[in-house]
């Protein structure tokens, strides 16, 4: 233990504790801006400076180790003035269009400048001007609002091992950019959006599609179907002040009905359908000596990752469309035919915890009915924006249920929203179907939890099936390297791009660094999913009655010719640069 004094108060902390952490233990919150636990302790912004007795200058508490006998002052006039000046300097080179900024009132810079008593006009002078990068369907990069905290750089590098952005140029001209200042569309960015979720300001944001959705909702000639992904319901409440880990499915559905959607459906349904298609594809590969290990294909940033960085493993990818794309495909074929609606008049709005889904909807081979399967993808954040714009009092609403028939999803479909969920859902079905008797235990706990890589072996009908689950592409990379090195004997691997899975997707409500550093919000959102699954009676994909009906009346059987045409897709090799 190390003994030190923080503002005169004696405290003992463990070896390796930083001054920032020690202060928190002493009941003092030191403000931070660039600091992000585990991935970005670089001492760059200088907001967290403190006085340490004997040090030549102020020190950045986020990177300064506590040491025996140290005396720290966190609140002297000098410290407070310095922090204020630092933020005022940042503001002097920040595009202060705060009134209309998408991050207004959820902006760490804004909160900090208020907290520190800053004057945003204190420093006058040159302001950098950068063109916006709007070249991708998923992300807007606005360097005019960037404050060079580099949290995005760290997330891209450490969470995802993608590292396509970094600081370019020097001096006042320093900015975050891509190699050779290329457009985002021309580099191997996978579109996961983790950079957005760590950005303290509005410099990184999703490409907002709410205007298009509003227009469709107001167009009487259009039949608007909205469908939500599993992880949206356990996060949307945060946008309305509900506690972390609240499953607000009922209010979410009610508000979407009030938005004016013709049908409000649940993507959990096509998660179940995915299990049927993917499960049978896996069986086929095992029985017919196909390419193994099979890799899941639900996560579009993961798909893009493989296409850029491991194109040789494309044959390992399941050919199943993602649940989102299957949903749009089913709506525009079976549902349209059944209800006599011209698919051209259907506007399919997908609500996702993800920004890569905005890219996915424009991929080739995703138009089962000759029109795009999906018309709009809005994130959890955008859905909240729509609800607010329409004046809907989310918290006041009585719970409502999804419409029929495609509002029926199993617990297995629901757990698609968390890392390990696809694997567990598949195991529930494959094991029970192959063994021909009801499962004794539905919970496959070895593949649960927030560990980056999980491995397990399950006996399925006498065969030992070796599975692996990874979330965060840096972890996926480790598994892919093992496969390429011939060191992996897995049969089936589930990958989700975002660390922790879709609950922590790039389209989810943004948590400040203080929350990220101190609360395991991913675990809370995951728990809401597992608790809901646990309480459900329908917990296996193959028992979903609508899935059964769909096979009986439309597709015939999983992996049938028709199912292949509508529910499966293909991939492309992409270069790196």
């Amino acid at each position, binding site marked *: 233990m190390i003994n030190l004094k923080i503002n005169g108060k004696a405290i003992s902390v463990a070896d390796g504790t930083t001054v920032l952490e020690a202060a928190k233990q002493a009941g003092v919150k030191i403000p931070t801006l660039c600091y992000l636990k585990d991935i970005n302790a670089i001492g760059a912004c200088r907001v967290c400076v403190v006085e340490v007795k004997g040090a030549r200058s102020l020190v950045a508490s986020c990177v300064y180790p506590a040491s025996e006998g140290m005396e720290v002052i966190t609140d002297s006039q000098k410290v407070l003035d310095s922090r204020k000046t630092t933020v005022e*300097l940042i503001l002097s080179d920040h595009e202060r269009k705060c009134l209309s900024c998408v991050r207004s009132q959820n902006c760490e810079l804004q909160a900090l400048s208020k907290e520190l008593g800053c004057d945003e006009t204190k420093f006058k002078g040159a302001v950098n001007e950068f063109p916006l990068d709007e070249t991708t369907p998923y992300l807007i990069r606005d360097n005019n609002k960037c404050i060079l905290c580099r949290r995005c750089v760290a997330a891209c590098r450490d969470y995802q091992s993608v590292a396509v952005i970094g600081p370019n140029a020097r001096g006042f001209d320093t900015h975050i950019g891509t190699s050779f200042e290329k457009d985002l569309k021309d580099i191997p960015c996978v579109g996961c959006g983790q950079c957005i979720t760590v950005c303290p300001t509005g410099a990184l944001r999703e490409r907002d599609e709410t205007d298009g959705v509003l227009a469709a909702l107001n167009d009487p000639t259009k039949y608007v179907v909205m469908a939500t992904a599993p992880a949206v319901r356990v996060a949307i409440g945060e946008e309305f002040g509900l506690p972390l880990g609240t499953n607000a499915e009922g209010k979410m559905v009610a508000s979407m009905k009030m938005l004016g959607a013709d049908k409000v459906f649940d993507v959990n349904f096509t998660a179940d359908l995915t299990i049927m298609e993917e499960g049978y594809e896996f069986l086929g590969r095992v029985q017919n000596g196909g390419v193994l290990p099979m890799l899941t294909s639900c996560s579009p940033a993961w798909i893009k990752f493989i296409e850029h960085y491991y194109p040789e493993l494309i044959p390992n990818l399941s050919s199943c469309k993602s649940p989102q794309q299957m949903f749009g495909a089913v709506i525009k074929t079976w549902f349209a035919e059944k209800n006599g609606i011209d698919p051209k008049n259907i506007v399919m709005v997908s609500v996702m915890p993800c920004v890569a889904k905005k890219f996915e909807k424009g991929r080739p081979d995703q138009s089962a009915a000759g029109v795009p399967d999906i018309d709009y993808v809005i994130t959890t954040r955008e859905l909240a924006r729509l609800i607010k714009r329409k004046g809907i009092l989310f918290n006041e609403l009585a719970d409502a249920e999804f419409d029929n028939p495609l509002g029926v999803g199993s617990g297995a479909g629901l757990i698609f929203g968390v890392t390990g969920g696809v694997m567990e859902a598949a195991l529930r079905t494959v094991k029970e179907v192959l063994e021909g008797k009801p499962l004794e235990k539905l919970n496959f706990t070895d593949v649960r939890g927030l560990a980056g890589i999980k491995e397990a072996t399950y006996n399925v009908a006498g065969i030992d099936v070796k599975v692996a689950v990874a979330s965060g592409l840096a972890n996926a990379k480790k598994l892919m390297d093992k496969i390429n090195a011939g060191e992996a004997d897995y049969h089936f691997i589930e990958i989700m791009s975002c660390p922790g899975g879709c609950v922590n997707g790039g389209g989810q409500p943004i948590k400040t660094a203080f929350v990220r550093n101190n609360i395991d919000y991913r675990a809370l959102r995951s728990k809401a999913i597992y608790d809901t699954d646990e309480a459900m009676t329908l917990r296996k994909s193959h028992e979903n009655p609508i899935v059964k009906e769909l096979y009986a009346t439309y597709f015939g059987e999983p992996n049938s010719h028709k199912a292949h045409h509508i529910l499966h897709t293909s991939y492309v090799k992409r270069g790196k640069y």
Partner: protein
Amino acid sequence: MSKNVSSVTSLNDTAFYKNQYRIALRNCGIIDPENIDEYIAYDGYKALIKAYSSMTPQEVIDVIKASGLRGRGGGGFPTGTKWQFTKNSVGDKKFVCCNADEGDPGAFMDRAVMEGDPHAVIEAMTIAGYAIGADQGYVYIRAEYPLAVKRLQIAINQAKEYGLLGKNILNTGYNFDLEIRLGSGAFVCGEETALMNSIEGKRGEPRPRPPFPAVKGLFAKPTVLNNVETYANIAQIILNGAEWFSSMGTVKSKGTKVFALGGKIVNTGLVEIPMGTTLRTIIEEIGGGIPGGKKFKAAQTGGPSGGCIPPEHFDIEIDYDNLIAIGSMMGSGGLIVMDEDNCMVDIAKFFLEFTQEESCGKCTPCRIGTQRLLEYLEKITSGNADMQDLEDMESLCYYIKDNALCGLGQTAPNPVLSTMRYFKDEYLAHVRDKKCPAGVCKKLLKFIITDACKGCTLCAKKCPVGAISGTVKNVHTIDQAKCIKCGVCMESCKFSAIIKG
């Protein structure tokens, strides 16, 4: 042939050399740097053999400690202590690095050593490797020094051929290998942690300390980093002993220091003088005074991180601590002499422009703070500043010193603070009177034709923009709106009738 040979002064008796004492530059210009035999003939590699054969690593460090040698790259940290820290650090691998990324404007002593005596660096680094327990070294040289790179590579190859570098050196069982890494023109890569990032292939920008390089340096291993001039002293200290070295200099600064003498001075170039030599000796004797009989105004030391020494400190004994006490610093040894024609605000602006451009952009105080500082200076030199600006600028200087991440940022305001300290009247003249006393700041400059004008019309003919009008034999006038302040009229006037106003 001269008839009177005895009247030719020996080189060492000339004013320029007689006050110098050359340790770091001892072989420069004397031996063929591309021939290892010549280095060996001048006691080369003798110190290495002495260390290997008769000294323990700790004894080597003790000698360096006792010599009082301090880092010549600017910081002045005791070299022996640095080696001791690195030796004491636990690590499966350790490194010895050489900072040859000489970047201060006008400084070129490291270049002279590498081009003139490259083996001195190799020998010293090998000794350092022995002392701290490292078998790998890197020399980080700026790519703008192609000849230094070439000669150092030749020297490395020759040393390897002779068994003085590489595996099992001189059959002692000790290994030490050396590689060159090229810098790509970033001033900040002279900062030790930025330099290591750059060697590792990362963006050259500083990382927070602690951990210090002695504990976690290159590739997160304990690392000794010294600059070229520091290494150039090592072999001589080992050979001649700590006492020999520490007999030179002042109480806390031992040995000699190389300065790059430049600016308004008769003799320019590299001078190596014992620590404690006065500024007066350097400028009046070695430098031969200021040309044109002009008045000495200031000497700038320490490069962009340093400050200006005013006439009242003309007799200061130059060493690390004295310079810091008067608001400047040793730096890597740039010494620029300024006379009455230099504007001190303009000088401060020059250095700020440099540090701002060379900021790595990582921390806020340096990236944005120095830009705002520069803007204050621009405001002052263009006559648009008020007294409040002057006050705000000063507090911004102290803010940057207290808050910047690395040495580059922390010292960036020094040129401003030191000129404000000693030449406040010049700042006031710019701010209050809207005048540049030295007549340098163009926006405050006005050329005026006085009654001494004879009406010869020469200036009107020379003026490139036709701003001067007047008839023969009558006093001419300058249209200030047209004037571009090039000064051609003043230069061409034979009657000294044109003055700066």
